[in-house]
């Protein structure tokens, strides 16, 4: 399997999805070798993890953000910075070397950063390649065209892939729309969540201020995600301004970092809701869990969200969710509020309703939690095992 990140060194949902999927697959009669572009201690025992380090590199230093540059420390002590595109090329070359000495039946690659490597393996070994799409370029670019180099890698990969797995019908539709790939080549395998893997709350919430305000009748809306165009946060803030006019005791907690950070702070101020919007920067661990828990409503207003795990995490930690209809999770979660990302008035209407009516919050959460508790990655691993079997048979035929 070719991947770009795994927890705890993940920048977002991609690493978590790969981890959970492999964990579920490891219960099957198959073995996984997961090839990463960096070396780290993952504490994972259910599969082999190989770091695709180029020769002569002593260590690779990456920041928390997937799309930042990488610093390579060479054995002679010198340092070299690679941008994401160069990094993907380097990964491709090292994977090509690696597979010369490895035995495997199928290559399963996650997202565009690994697609060229997958194609190289197919070229060298003739084995089937399955490309797993957690997002496409137009998602990341916020429904715009995006980077033409990335678009080209995706297009080539999709054309040459033996099979494509999309994390939602939404993503499948995007692949068909943006790349003209035939629908029957793309299988939808929804992401999921393992309720048992959720780290429990410790009963003492980090967000003291918000707890105190809630005791005074305030209600809290949370969002967790990268502050980037794909996530649709300007619309959430515009809706927030309408909500605050009608439900003044509403606070918005925005957890994350990204290139829109300052722009969003500015926008909140311009909309006159500066005092109602709290930005926490990127958080993980307890501070992230507590952010989910302190909310009365979690809002994911994404312009395009291939799946969207955060609403499920929020439900697990006690908050109901409002998600954009342009998300994969909206296909699998019934007991949540749903809105078009562009429909600011309806977003405000639904948020205000939850802020003003506790029975709505409680009923939404109660029913969502019942759905959450039934979720598991087993459905996904069953489907993927079947896809592997189909392609192994083809490979040996």
């Amino acid at each position, binding site marked *: 399997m070719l991947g770009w990140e795994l927890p705890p060194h993940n920048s977002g949902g991609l690493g978590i999805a790969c981890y959970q999927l492999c964990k579920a697959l490891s219960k099957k009669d198959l073995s996984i070798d997961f090839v990463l572009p960096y070396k780290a201690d993952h504490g994972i025992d259910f599969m082999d993890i190989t770091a695709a380090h180029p020769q002569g590199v002593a260590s690779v230093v990456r920041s928390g953000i997937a799309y930042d540059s990488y610093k390579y420390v060479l054995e002679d002590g010198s340092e070299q910075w690679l941008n994401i595109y160069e990094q993907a090329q380097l990964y491709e070359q090292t994977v090509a070397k690696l597979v010369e000495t490895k035995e495997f039946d199928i290559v399963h690659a996650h997202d565009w950063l690994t697609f060229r490597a997958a194609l190289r393996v197919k070229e060298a070994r003739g084995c089937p390649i399955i490309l797993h799409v957690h997002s496409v370029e137009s998602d990341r670019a916020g429904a715009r065209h995006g980077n033409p180099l990335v678009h080209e890698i995706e297009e080539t990969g999709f054309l040459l892939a033996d099979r494509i797995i999309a994390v939602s019908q939404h993503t499948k539709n995007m692949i068909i729309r943006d790349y003209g790939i035939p629908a029957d080549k793309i299988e939808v395998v929804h992401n999921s969540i393992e309720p048992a893997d959720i780290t429990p709350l410790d009963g003492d919430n980090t967000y003291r201020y918000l707890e105190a305000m809630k005791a005074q009748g305030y209600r809290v809306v949370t969002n967790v995600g990268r502050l980037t165009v794909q996530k649709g946060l300007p619309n959430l803030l515009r809706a927030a301004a309408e909500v605050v006019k009608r439900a003044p005791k509403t606070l918005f907690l925005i957890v994350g970092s990204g290139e829109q950070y300052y722009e969003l702070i500015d926008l909140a101020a311009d909309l006159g809701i500066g005092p109602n919007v709290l930005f926490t920067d990127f958080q993980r661990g307890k501070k992230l869990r507590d952010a989910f828990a302190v909310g009365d409503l979690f809002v994911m207003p994404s312009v395009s969200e291939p799946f969207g795990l955060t609403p499920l995490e929020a439900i697990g930690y006690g908050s109901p969710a409002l998600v954009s209809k342009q998300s994969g999770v909206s296909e699998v979660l019934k*007991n949540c509020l749903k809105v078009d990302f562009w429909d600011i008035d309806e977003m405000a209407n639904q948020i205000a309703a939850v802020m003003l*009516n506790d*029975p709505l919050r409680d*009923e939404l959460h109660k029913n969502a939690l019942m*759905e959450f508790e039934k979720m598991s990655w087993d459905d996904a691993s069953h489907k993927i095992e079947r896809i592997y079997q189909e392609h192994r048979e083809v490979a040996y035929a």
Partner: protein
Amino acid sequence: MSKAIVLYLHVHQPYRIRHYTVFDTAVKHDYFDAAYEDQESNERILQKVAQKSYLPTNARLLQLLNDNPQFKLSLSITGTVIEQLEKWSPEALQSFKDLCATGRVEIVAETYHHSLAFFYSRAEFEMQVEMHKRKVQEVFGQTPQVFRNTELCYNNDVAYWADRAGYKGVLAEGWDPILGWRSPNFVYRPTYTNQIRLLMKNYKLSDDIAFRFGDQNWAEWPLTADKFTHWLNADQSATNFNLFMDYETFGEHQWEESGIFGFLSHLPQEWLKTGGNTFMTVSEVIDNFEPVDQVDVPETITWADTERDLSAWLGNGMQTGSIQALYDLQDRVIATGDLALIDDWRKLQTSDHFYYMCTKYFNDGDIHAYFSPYQTPYEAYINFMNAYHDLRYRLSEKGVTV
């Protein structure tokens, strides 16, 4: 000894709340006026139901009444649907009047607004029953003798109230845990009453028509009038078969393609083939047969869902919270004397609003979803509460503390 089919059909349409948002609250008060093409358009739905159900069914019922002097039936028809027929389908309303003009169609009493007021405000409940009585007198020229509570909600209190109010009968679900070994095919007497009689729905036979008729996976499909009559004739001791169902069974819940109209058209002649078989209205069956036993119903039963309780309307916090909030406004709303405000408050009491908020079985996409104009129960609640907040705003505009 004669044996009667007691066919009783319930006609109702609510005033559905449009997509009424927080931006409308305190700005517009037109909760029930969706655009014609919208899901929640009452006018569009009423016209659709009139075309698919009311007009074709009434045409056949009138034919049956003309062809078979023994054919009779009972109807309950809510104030909210009569109003809508007056506005949007006078020809369908006329077809109901034509049925009544035969003298063999009896109208049953109920609340004007198809509300659950009995459980929240006795004064409001009695007002709505009185409003309905007057509307029926005005439109159909008859005074109801037998009472049914909304959704066949029934308990000993309902019977006691109806007895005191002078009704000769009351309708309820013939639910097994209540009847035990007894059959619903007789007239009963409610406990703690003397005069009033209780008619209990034979839900197996009624649901064969109302729910299972078009189900091709049902072992008895296709159900013919001949087969159905055969089942009824097999019960030697019964006096009355209480077939109670939504009127919209004919042409709406069961589509014309299912053959439901053919079944209806053939039922009287098949049934009347056997000597002693007849049809009776709800009053007639009470006049003709003595009660065989008394029935005790301490807990409320209804005709809905497998639970046969109020949980479809009052089963979650959104439902109980919103209905309680609405009735809490009663004194303040009535005191304004503002008829438009009072009318809107009453229209919001219609039980359907709370039914749309039902989360039971939401995950299974069941029958509740079929009857709801909203995508989710949460959407239903949001619209309702925005309208409720607007009512409060209107009160506050009048200087009332809310």
